[in-house]
């Protein structure tokens, strides 16, 4: 019995090893193939114990069952099939392994950092309208500059307290009206009715001096504050300033400023 060997090849074989196990598990009882030791038996110790394995052997690449389940499968006797013994042919999995070889052509270093890949993929998922569609996460995207399909973002307001906590709103170039209504350029529409529906305040970004200004609308009765002060006129905003309107706390995060402005790439590389 090969199952006692527990050779180190069990891990190295990757999915082919587990596939082979699964294939054997699926067919061994019917085929009555002899279970003798083979050179690289890579099943776990309990593999050949009697009971038939019900688990369907999944396609390793994309089916649902995880590999560990498959590994409880039966013996991986690649040469054990009676048919195979007669015809001296390779099993499907062995033939596959032989033709695949070990090398895969990789124009660049193929392996992907787990963390990097995951985070990048999650960004893509957020944008995908239908995640089950075939999409590409990797590879270079053609970069077109100089023309925008939508207003370029210059910063963000992040809701850190009150209704909508955790959400964010983009701040665009030019003048941005802030209010509860969806018609506002920065709609704070999370259900805080202590915010005026329209033009409670403005945030202006001026790309010529790359500064952000917060301008309260003094015609509104609701009061706004920036860093606990109650401005009666325009105040300059800097990173991580806290704006309170109604029962909502917002933190300002600039994207453009001294280090970057859209005009840079539009002028230089556009």
């Amino acid at each position: 019995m090969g199952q006692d060997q527990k050779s180190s090849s069990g891990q190295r074989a990757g999915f082919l090893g587990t596939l082979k196990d699964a294939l054997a598990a699926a067919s061994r009882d019917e085929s009555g193939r002899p279970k003798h030791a083979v050179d690289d038996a890579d099943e776990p110790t309990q593999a050949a114990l009697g009971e038939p394995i019900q688990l369907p052997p999944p396609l390793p690449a994309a089916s649902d069952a995880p590999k560990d389940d498959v590994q409880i499968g039966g013996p991986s006797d690649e040469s054990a099939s009676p048919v195979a013994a007669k015809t001296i042919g390779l099993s499907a999995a062995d033939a596959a392994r032989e033709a695949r070889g070990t090398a895969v052509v990789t124009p660049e270093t193929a392996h992907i950092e787990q963390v990097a890949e995951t985070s990048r993929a999650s960004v893509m998922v957020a944008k995908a309208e239908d995640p089950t569609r075939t999409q590409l996460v990797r590879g270079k995207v053609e970069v077109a500059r100089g023309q925008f399909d939508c207003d370029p973002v210059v910063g963000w307001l992040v809701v850190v307290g009150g209704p909508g906590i955790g959400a964010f709103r983009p701040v665009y170039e030019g003048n941005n009206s802030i209010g509860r209504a969806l018609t506002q350029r920065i709609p704070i529409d999370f259900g805080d009715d202590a915010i005026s529906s329209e033009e409670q305040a403005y945030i202006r970004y001026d790309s010529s001096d790359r500064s952000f200004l917060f301008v309260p609308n003094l015609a509104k009765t609701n009061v706004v504050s920036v860093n606990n002060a109650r401005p009666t006129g325009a105040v300059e905003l800097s990173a991580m300033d806290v704006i309170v309107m109604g029962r909502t706390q917002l933190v300002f995060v600039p994207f453009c400023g001294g280090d970057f402005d859209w005009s840079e790439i539009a002028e230089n590389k556009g």
Partner: protein
Amino acid sequence: MLAFDYGRRATQGAREYQEDSAAIRAGSDAAASAEPGDGGADHPELVAVLADGMGGHTGGALASKIICEKFIDVFGGREGAVAERLMVSLTAANEAIAGKIAADPVLSGMGSTIVGVAFTGNGVEWVSVGDSPLLLFRRGEVALLNEDHSLAPELDRLAEAGQITREQARHDPRRHMLRSAVTGEELDLIDQSVKPLVLEHGDYVVLASDGLHTLETSEIERLISAYADDGADAVAGALIRSVEAMRDPHQDNATVVAVRARDVTQS
């Protein structure tokens, strides 16, 4: 001597568009425009290509069509080692996409997987980019021949390492996302056979788009076994019927090209 017959079937699934394409050429006799469901007589040589397109409304369907046509065309027009012809055809297909996008930037972002397979007297050789599975059926068992360039193997690896649960890996929508595809840009990952896989009488090689993953491998084995004697067209038909019978509300496009190897000197 082994000869090959083939069958091709497709289903649109629950999608608005059919973005898969497939083409087959037998010897010099172009069957690239063959209709789905066509059977093939015994051919000494075949080249088959299948592509699963992506990218917007018509982009995906267009990309997979361009890739299949270009691949078949270039492969048929060249002499030399099969492995080299496969690579040259892949490169040409990729360049065809780049050219199309350059001519019409609206199509930017379209792309496709590809699995291109050559059947000759030496055996089966392939080149593959993306996650369209290439399966070998032999004596009741199915094995995956090409490498999966989707995130599914990465997710499974994360699950194995205990960083996510198996349940999360199984249902993660990122399973379908690709690490490499034919987009006209440099190809990130290419899987190619290292040497020809020698076929035996009765073997089936199946090119599929990932919509076939609706079926468990055991079910695929069962179906091919059951229809093996009826020929490649029957096998292709059975696989697609079975995918349709699952009635998955999110069923992706599914296309299969089944190729049977038959020893014609025996029969």
